[in-house]
């Protein structure tokens, strides 16, 4: 049976969602670990070095980025397919609509997956434009371990001085947390990996995972907004 036919089925679409979602979550874990190096008390040297290492991977980095983009697109396409299918499956709603509670996992998080997803869909390109391309401006350079490297740290710290950016990022990270709150356990259920014995534990781990990831990411904008100083003078100078 062809892969296309599997994707056309409801079960296949959820497998696509789950596998891509798991890869995206793994990416987020490494992304967060990288970001947390900004907290090293060295005016961004460790972080800039890390960013530089990534960039010097050359072709390998492009391959990884292309793979990530493909995974992301799979996730988004399947997400809209599931959403449109649901709209077709029930045209009007109910006059009164309530959850029966108990084993139900119908929550704000599960109901708003498409909304939190669309927010991420808009956020991610903006985020890449801001930090990977410095919003179209030239980067400044700094010296780390005898090497000239892009001062990405300065761009991040400076951006988060702006309250709109700092609090905008914080809000998006809260919505990411909501996405992961349902997404974490849901991906395992979609892959058929759940059993009643494990469900409560995995569902609880999902909450912890969502809190850790969202909390970790939103530390940065808040920290730099409240405590950050623009590190230009003391950074070994621009180019």
């Amino acid at each position, binding site marked *: 049976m062809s892969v296309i036919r599997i994707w056309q089925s409801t*079960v296949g679409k959820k497998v696509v969602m789950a596998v891509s979602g798991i890869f995206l979550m793994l990416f987020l874990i490494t992304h967060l670990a990288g970001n947390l190096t900004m907290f090293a008390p060295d005016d961004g040297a460790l972080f800039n070095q890390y960013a530089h290492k990534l960039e010097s991977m050359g072709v390998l980095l492009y391959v990884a980025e292309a793979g990530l983009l493909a995974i992301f697109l799979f996730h988004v396409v399947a997400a809209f397919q599931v959403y449109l299918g649901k709209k077709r*499956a*029930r045209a009007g709603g109910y006059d009164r609509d309530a959850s029966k509670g108990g*084993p*139900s996992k119908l929550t704000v998080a*599960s*109901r708003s997956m498409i909304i939190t997803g669309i927010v991420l869909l808009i956020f991610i390109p903006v985020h890449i434009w801001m930090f990977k391309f410095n919003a179209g401006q030239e980067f400044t350079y700094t010296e780390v371990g005898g090497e000239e490297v892009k001062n990405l740290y300065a761009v991040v710290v400076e951006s988060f001085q702006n309250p709109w950016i700092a609090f905008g990022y914080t809000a998006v990270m809260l919505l990411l947390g909501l996405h992961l709150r349902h997404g974490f356990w849901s991906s395992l259920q979609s892959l058929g990996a759940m059993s009643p014995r494990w469900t409560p534990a995995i569902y609880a781990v999902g909450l912890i995972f969502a809190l850790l990831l969202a909390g970790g990411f939103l530390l940065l904008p808040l920290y730099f907004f409240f405590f950050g100083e623009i590190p230009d003078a003391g950074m070994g100078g621009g180019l």
Partner: protein
Amino acid sequence: MKFQVKVWRQKNRQDAGRFETYTVEDVIPEMSFLEMLDLLNEQLLKRDESPIEFDSDCREGICGTCGLVVDGMAHGPKRACTTCELRMRNFSEDKTIVVEPFRAHGFPVIKDLVVDREAFDRIIAAGGYTSVNTGSAPEANALLIPKDIAEKAMDSAACIGCGACVAACPNASASLFVSAKITQFSLLPQGAAERKRRAVRMVEQMDREGFGNCSNHAECEAACPKSISIENIAVMRREYMKGALAGA
């Protein structure tokens, strides 16, 4: 007791339908929800109004014929309960009770609260059976089935096919029903021979009927009068993928 009920009225499949509000008098707390509707229908007939159509058969929670969305919940507010087992003592007189049909593209309304659930029959016809030669019953101990497996299969087989899972699901997905049938057969030796083909065919038929995808909200398990677990849906996904990858 005296209740205000807001009921969906729809003349036929084409009619747009609308809500009507009625007052039912002389309700006894021990009455089932359907008996309350019977009483309302008697009162309507006395006034020469057309009675409210709704489905029922056994009225003891085993046939799966009844099914209404009461106050926004399939089979009403009580868990592990069919509409016919629901008692009026579960309701307060102060609040209007809203009664709606199951709503899903796969379950078109025929009249008032009666929906067409033939989609489920077509899904069963696509694979929800075992092809065996009929004849005299085999000796009971010829096929040994461990007790825990027999019990799990029985838990899945408890599905009465009422469709509450579809009604309760925000996506109008039929996954709980279909997965209960697939799981029941996959656990037993009689069903094993056709398991791959069965899973693929039943899932594809479910999709053709226009039910939504499963977003793992688990509201179906809460609404199911037989408390069928969404573990069945996990099993269905495994069975489908195994079948599909094996080219069934």
